[in-house]
């Protein structure tokens, strides 16, 4: 395990300490165990709060998107492990300015249980919550069972769009509806080249041959849809686009935002080679790309690989996508 760290069990807390020191103007640490990050600029009276949370090891997801026009608070778990119920409840409390809180997180059973339980706890305190789970990974379940799909990089669009709606002082019903609409508009698929190592575990999350890749592998190493040998970038991306377009066909005139995301180790150079192919293919279909994102937006520490996300936009979503937001990792 070649990592720059101290005690593996202090990994998350030391990381959060550094994160908040480096971004004082954005983040403040709170919660009974210091595992909640809230906006440093404080609550906005009358704005619906948006809370997320999940395991560590996916920066900038989840915490990195706390900021204006995005999340209000985030609960942080150990690496690849849900935040504790108490921490989720603390995050909800911290985000509540009086008009309710949307819990917007990835569709993993541990997170679901803990958010549900936290929601029941804060309900007793009079805080209204709603829930939208991001489920964009087309490789994790067939279209007919979309609600079983995992949440991956589509989280970024869900945060952005719901966050922009909340910034308009919309009601909790409206913000929740937009979040769900964003989730419905997103499709992602990833490809993994190498595993990563959870510090407290010390061995790689999965094994994969020297020249093997796995399309559709999850961000914690969950099995994908096809394991094969490494092939040229364009062929890999073509296969990935096949899954995306089969799931959500795009037509001439459609407008989408595209996120080409590194899982960690895969460098920007390769992402741009990938984006080049995606942009050409979409241009060929007559699809207009709006505000493409290329970089590291949802990672698995040092895993090599990347994902492609489409977010299909109607006029409402496009307006929200282009609305201002400000966090260290996403600024519009």
């Amino acid at each position, binding site marked *: 395990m070649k990592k720059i760290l101290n005690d593996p069990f202090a990994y998350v807390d030391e990381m959060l300490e550094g994160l908040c020191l480096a971004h004082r103007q954005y983040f403040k640490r709170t919660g*009974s165990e210091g*595992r909640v990050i809230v906006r440093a600029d404080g609550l906005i009276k009358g704005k619906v709060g948006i809370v997320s949370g999940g395991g560590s090891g996916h920066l900038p997801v989840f915490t990195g998107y706390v900021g204006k026009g995005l999340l209000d608070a985030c609960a942080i*778990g150990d690496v690849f492990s*849900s935040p*504790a119920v108490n921490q989720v409840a603390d995050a909800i409390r911290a985000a509540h300015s009086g008009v309710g809180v949307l819990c917007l997180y990835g569709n993993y*059973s*541990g997170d679901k249980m*803990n958010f549900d339980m936290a929601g029941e706890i804060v309900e007793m305190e009079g805080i209204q919550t709603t829930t939208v789970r991001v489920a964009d990974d087309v490789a994790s379940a067939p279209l007919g069972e979309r609600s079983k799909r995992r949440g991956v990089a589509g989280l970024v669009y869900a945060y952005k769009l719901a966050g922009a709606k909340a910034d308009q002082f919309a009601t909790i019903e409206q913000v929740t509806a937009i979040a769900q609409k964003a989730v419905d508009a997103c499709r992602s698929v990833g490809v993994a080249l190498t595993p990563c190592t*959870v510090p*407290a575990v010390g061995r790689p999350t999965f094994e994969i041959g020297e020249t093997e890749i796995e399309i559709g592998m999850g961000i914690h190493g969950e099995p994908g849809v096809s394991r094969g040998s490494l092939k040229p970038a364009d062929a890999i991306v073509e296969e990935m686009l096949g899954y995306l377009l089969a799931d959500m066909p795009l037509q001439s005139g459609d407008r989408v935002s595209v996120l080409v995301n590194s899982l960690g180790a895969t460098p920007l150079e390769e992402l741009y080679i990938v984006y080049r192919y995606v942009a050409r293919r979409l241009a060929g279909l007559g699809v207009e790309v709006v505000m493409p994102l290329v970089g590291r937006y949802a990672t698995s520490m040092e895993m090599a690989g990347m994902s492609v996300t489409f977010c299909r936009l109607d006029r409402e979503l496009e307006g929200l996508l282009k609305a201002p937001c400000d966090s260290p990792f996403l600024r519009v």
Partner: protein
Amino acid sequence: MSAALTTTVLSGALRRIIEKLEACADELNSLDAQLGDGDLGVTLVRGGRALAAELPNLPEDLALALQSCAQALTKLSGSTYGTLLATGLMGAAKATKGHTEVPWTEVSVLLGTALQAMARRSGAQLGDKTILDALESARAATLGLEDPAALVTAADRAVAESIERFRKRPSRQGRARIFGEMTIGRDDPGMVGFKRIIEAIKQNPGP
């Protein structure tokens, strides 16, 4: 032995469970390492320690005592098992509201109540090879039993059989699910963890 389940009995049992869990941590970690992320032992030790801190102050009202235990577990970093146990305890707390004791014959019903809450929370079904299946076998085996020692023995035997039975089947929930057919032939760590909890009560009875 007490004539019914009271906070005193609960305290005594928890004390023994906490001790036992420290001893089983490595075993449960390695079981979980094979089909999950290897933290079940750590989770249960941490959970035990959180409960130990509550023990001196457990209220006599059994419902409130169960709720205190549930709340202690919600402070743990988010392990599935911790949340499930907390959910079960919370369900049991609700069902015993206002009671200072539960007759032994009702313990099975209480297990059923906990089971239902846990199933609702997790979305898992019986047959998925999780702690729920162990709990269900304990519930069925203890139905109507009056004697606490017989009750624990029956539960222990039933859980052992259940582990045996599910060994041949694949895991359908949690991290283990992603290993698919590879899980056949292996024991679910959560079921084994539940067995160890019952053993702690059985091996060393009394309050």
